[in-house]
């Protein structure tokens, strides 16, 4: 049971009865109340009528495209949306994330992975938590002093590296798309070019990861973006 979300209501929009059943059993066991919808339009209706605290949305629905569901819900609600999608459809995922979905999990997924995403989404909702200190595993950042350290040892970062890491760390456990990172760190006018991102992420890893070839902090989400693994401290 997660204390901060006990009893939260989660709407599952998926046309597969087996997936809905699995999620109902597993999420109920985690203390969530599960609502169900088996099609896109019905999901949009339930979202507006029942006001769930979080939505788990399958991208491959029979009636409406998952992306359309995200857009429809985002017209009037900022409820966290986590997308379920198969590996082969990265572009759909990115489009949904850029349209306002909060995160995604690739099918087939581990339940611990999904619950970690749910917790991260709820954490992001808690207001007033403007602590200047971020702590993820052995990684520690003091935003007021622009200090970063790993296992108690200070690391020196270039301004760009610092901004990158800060953005990822303030969104720990949440996927950040390439586009989001590029516009956030380099600015909106910057022509988004993934090469810059690859180079800086590589440099960052060299400075903070124990083994840059097997990263434990900055995880790559193929075709989508990066995620700072916050669950290390969970």
């Amino acid at each position: 049971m997660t204390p901060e979300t006990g009893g939260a209501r989660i709407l599952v929009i998926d046309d597969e009865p087996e997936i809905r059943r699995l999620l109902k059993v597993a999420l109920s066991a985690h203390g969530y109340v599960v609502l169900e919808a088996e099609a896109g339009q019905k999901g949009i209706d339930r979202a507006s009528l029942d006001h769930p605290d979080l939505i788990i949305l399958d991208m491959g629905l029979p009636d409406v495209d998952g992306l359309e569901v995200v857009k429809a819900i985002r017209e009037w609600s900022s409820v966290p949306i986590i997308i379920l999608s198969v590996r082969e459809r990265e572009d759909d995922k990115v489009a949904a994330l850029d349209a306002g979905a909060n995160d995604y999990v690739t099918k087939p997924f581990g339940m611990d992975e999904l619950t970690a995403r749910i917790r991260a989404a709820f954490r992001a909702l808690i207001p007033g938590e403007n602590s200047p200190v971020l702590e993820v595993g052995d990684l520690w950042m003091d935003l007021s002093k622009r200090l970063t350290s790993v296992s108690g040892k200070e690391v020196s970062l270039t301004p760009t590296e610092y901004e990158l890491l800060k953005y990822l760390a303030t969104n720990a456990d949440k996927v950040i798309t390439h586009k989001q990172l590029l516009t956030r760190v380099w600015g909106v006018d910057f022509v988004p070019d993934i090469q810059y991102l690859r180079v800086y992420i590589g440099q960052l890893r060299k400075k903070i990861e124990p083994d840059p070839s097997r990263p434990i902090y900055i995880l790559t989400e193929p075709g989508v973006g990066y995620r700072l693994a916050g669950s290390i401290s969970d």
Partner: protein
Amino acid sequence: MTVEQRRRIIDYLVILALLAVVTIVCKTTGKFFNITDVAMLYLLPIIYAGARTDIWSSVATAIAGVLLFDLFFVPPLYTITVSDAHYIVTFVIFLLVGITTSVISDRLKNKTKETEAALGQTRAMYDLSTELTAVSSVRELSRIIVSGVADATGSDAALYLPDRSNVFTLMAASNPEGRLATDRNEGGVAGWVFEYGQEAGPGTDTLPGARGLYVPLKWEDEILGVLGIDVSEETNSDLARKKVLLLAFAGLATLALNKVLLSAATQHVKNLEASDKLRGALFDSMSHELRTPLASIIGAVTSLTGSEVAYTDEQKIELLDTINKGAARMDRLVRNLLDMARLESDSFKLKTEWCDIQDVIGVALAAFGEELENRPTVVNVEEDLPLLKIDFELIVQVLVNLVDNALKYSPPGSKIETTARHESAGVVVSVEDQGPKIPNEELNRVFDKFYRIEIPGTAAGSGLGLSICKSIIDVHGGSIWAETRPGGGNRFVFSLPVVERKPESETR
């Protein structure tokens, strides 16, 4: 004023000048020419008119000649009264000479024109036949045929062929918006020609009211298609001429089409045979590869749900772990199958982006989760490797397959080493294991589809993973090979080309 008009006016002036000269010269020289000579001299402008102009100008010149001759030389002078019936003969001869010359020269002119036209058509057909031999697709061939026919005949042309699903369709038209191509009735006429193997349209016994003239493309007893041209505006003589041309082009089109269709048919049979063999191997491999994890999953689940035995927590965890591993194995297999289907589909496109190979290795190793935990896994990535323009997911899949292979075919607990470095061939990545050496003669064949080596004591693979690795590396323009390690074990190596990229701006 056109060249033709200018030429004509000069001809008229010459005729007038000749008439004037003959009249003046004969008149002023008095008795030097007798009257018969004068009559002969008046033939000059008439012959000139016959040779250079049309028949009506020749007749007019003949009449003018007779009038002048009568007026100035035949007594009584300066009247057109003819006292002697003798001069009627002169008049008739003048006319006959004018008309005959004109007709003969007309015929000559027409002959020349025809010869020139025939020469042009022969050249057009020669050009077309050269162009056709270089083409291997039916669609391209059809396009060339109709444009060739349209150029040579000056009419809209259309070619009908049965398509891939054997439906008779308009394959190409020189003017797709023209009536010949858009009128449905025309398609019906072409269909009739295709069915009965006989020509139809204007000038034939069948459907002479049609817009187009259609001829079948016949090879031995088979009708390959139908070629037609729009003859709705033609006169009868043009129709006959164009029909001859159409038939000639139809012969040429038949030959070219037959050649292309034959080679396509041979290729199709070859593909069918190969895909049959592959399908068989795929079923063999899949039934084994899918059943093994399924057996362990179903076995473990039924153990847990059965009520006969009470398992200890430790045993339960073990059974659940079996399910987890079996499912992960099936997931990898399904990924490989999907990748194979994607790579072999016609619409396959690489999704390349700039990638850090270290990132690719990290994602591939992370995919194994706990499976690599009891294996010493060493990763050596050279400093400052260039970024690669590759399909991230596919290269991850290559590494996953190579590591999976190493896991399967090397003893439990033995080391697996992944290395990436920059060489002249590009970025070279290798995965080394300590498994039993692959025999030298087998090293090249391990990348063949569904090829498996029987090594006692090791798990059997699908024979799919390595062949997918090869396909993926091939589409990236790299190369992949296997070698044995001097110290024992095998090494799978692939290289990826390095592409120039823009330099980055911020200094470190």
